[in-house]
């Protein structure tokens, strides 16, 4: 295991980048980065054929550190750039990494349309319930009543469930994991990347520095182990009442269906339209 970690670190991190990275000690983003690299390594994808696009925010800085074709785009727009890359060069494996505010506030429209459109892209959304980089303002996943730098009296709005939103919008593969369940996350990412069509993995993560501190949720270890206690496997949750699920969330695969993939369908259109008279 140690040997493999060394291999992955050597093979997939950019060594000519001026480290250290921007993340705070204990941040869950590093765990997601590790999981993503292990999944890609396990799948044996050539580095030259992988494109990772991200938006803006702490989690989106991930693209800076990894040795693929990387695209750090504008806030919320990673999926739009990814759509262009994928359609222009379908042989590339396109993965996006976004935060909760990035993907579901400013990028919410792009997110639901990417799911509806069903292009062969994987979206990894790191959900830490806050805008960490800008100082801890409330995001679309900040829970009702929580404190943030823009809801010091307690948040009066309700939060999105990102994975359920993706299911409803039409994503063919949707999973939720946490930074506590790293081994499971490796597998979920592998499944998502392998899936034909638009796949989504929501990763529940910790921002103990902004969200955690203001809501007395403890340090990084406390927050991350808290995910262990609050996460319920999808199959088990199906047998639990709403009351029993209060304060908890599901992990695992929420949706895995097959639908025609629009990027592949378009190839058929190309073939057919060539046959038509000019």
């Amino acid at each position, binding site marked *: 295991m140690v040997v493999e970690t060394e291999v992955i670190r050597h093979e997939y991190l950019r060594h000519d980048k001026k480290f250290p990275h921007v993340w705070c000690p204990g941040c869950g983003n590093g765990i997601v980065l590790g999981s993503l690299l292990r999944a890609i390594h396990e799948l044996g994808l050539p580095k030259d*054929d992988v*494109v990772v696009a991200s938006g803006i925010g702490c989690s989106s800085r991930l693209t*800076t550190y990894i*040795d693929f074709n990387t695209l750090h785009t504008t806030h919320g727009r990673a999926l739009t750039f990814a759509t262009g*890359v994928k*359609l222009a060069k379908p042989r*590339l494996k396109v993965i996006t990494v976004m935060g909760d505010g990035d993907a579901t506030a400013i990028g919410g429209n792009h997110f639901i349309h990417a799911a509806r459109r069903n292009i062969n892209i994987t979206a990894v959304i790191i959900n830490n319930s806050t805008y960490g980089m800008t100082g801890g303002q409330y995001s679309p996943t900040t829970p009702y009543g929580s404190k943030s730098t823009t809801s010091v009296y307690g948040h009066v709005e309700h939060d999105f469930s990102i994975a359920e939103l993706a299911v409803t919008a039409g994503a063919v593969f949707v999973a939720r994991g946490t930074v506590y369940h790293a081994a499971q996350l490796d597998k979920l990412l592998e499944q998502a990347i392998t899936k034909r069509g638009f796949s989504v993995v929501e990763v529940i993560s910790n921002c103990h520095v902004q969200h955690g501190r203001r809501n007395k949720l403890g340090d990084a270890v406390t927050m991350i182990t808290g995910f262990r206690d609050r996460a319920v496997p999808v199959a088990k949750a199906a047998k639990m009442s709403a009351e029993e699920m209060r304060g908890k969330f599901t992990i695992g695969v929420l949706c895995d269906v097959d639908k025609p993939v629009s990027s592949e369908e378009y190839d058929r259109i190309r073939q057919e339209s060539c046959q038509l008279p*000019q």
Partner: protein
Amino acid sequence: MASPETGQRLLLQGNEAVVHGALAAGCRFFAGYPITPASEISELLSVMLPKVGGTFIQMEDEIASMGAIIGASLAGVKSMTATSGPGFSLMQENLGYACITEVPCVVVNVMRGGPSTGLPTNVSQGDVLMARWGTHGDHPIIVLAVSSVADCFSITVRAFNLSEKYRVPVILLSDEVVAHTRECVVLPSQDKIRVVDRIAPSVPPEWYKPYADNNRGVPDMASFGEGYRHHVTGLVHDERGYPTQQPKEIESFLMRLHDKITKGFSEIMITKTQMMEDADVCVIAYGCVSRAAMQAIKMARAHGIKAGMLQLITLFPFPRKAVDAALRQCSAAIVPELNLGQMAREINRVNQTGTRVVKYNRIDGQMITPDEILKQILGVS
């Protein structure tokens, strides 16, 4: 449906000619969102692109359209979008991204009356300064204006060529009148069309520095998936593409972005003069208004007035040399525009000889007629 290869006479509207020009220039990716008066460009490309192995996609909005064409261009495919004022406003964010990451792409803005939803089916030239300065920060950009259906073909080709050569987004300003006017044009055959492609790196991947300066000021551009793995970011970056906050690296990078355009001035500045040899009064115009202006000049000549025409095709970088020459030669210049004087302001800015510059403006959604311009010429003669 005519293919762009034909050398035959065609009756086309401006929007259709833009499509043929784009295809002739090698455009193989289009992302857009429906908007009047630009929608015909989307509609025709949705038919034509798959036939040539290209891709058409209708995105959820203009922000997404702009993102998609940048992504496609990074993957090595020449890309374009087309819109009008409200959509052009939404594109400004990612337009800035294309400037700082030096991604070639062409953005067609078929101008209609503004501000806001404004006059969707009426003509205007209200987006001229927005095309230059719409996205935030000091940035380089090229803005071209078309005045005829023939222009819509040839200038679209030029737009792609400049974009590829200088790795900069090029804004093609059309307007509702040019877009919907039908004229007879003969499209040149493909072998007569000069097509410029971005220069790919020739060094081995491990030597590749995606944003390193060279004598052109335009770094070689590797496409995603060709072995030259690199980082693309909208943050100010060093020559390897990684974010930097070093003042020296910041300034040299941003200056290079501007200098690469300055180095190309002689090629980028496109203007056209007619009857200027002996002119004492000139009309400086662009877009559909230059058509009315040309007619007015002929009418003025019939009155015995030595009138001439300076048509601006490149609006930005501002063609200072050509404007300066016209202002030095003439005692007066008429600047008719379908806005409140956006280019007249630029012309006055470079007016060193105190030549009389007379603005003539309409913002009521109607064309300026030759008679109106003639009246202005007679007024200064």
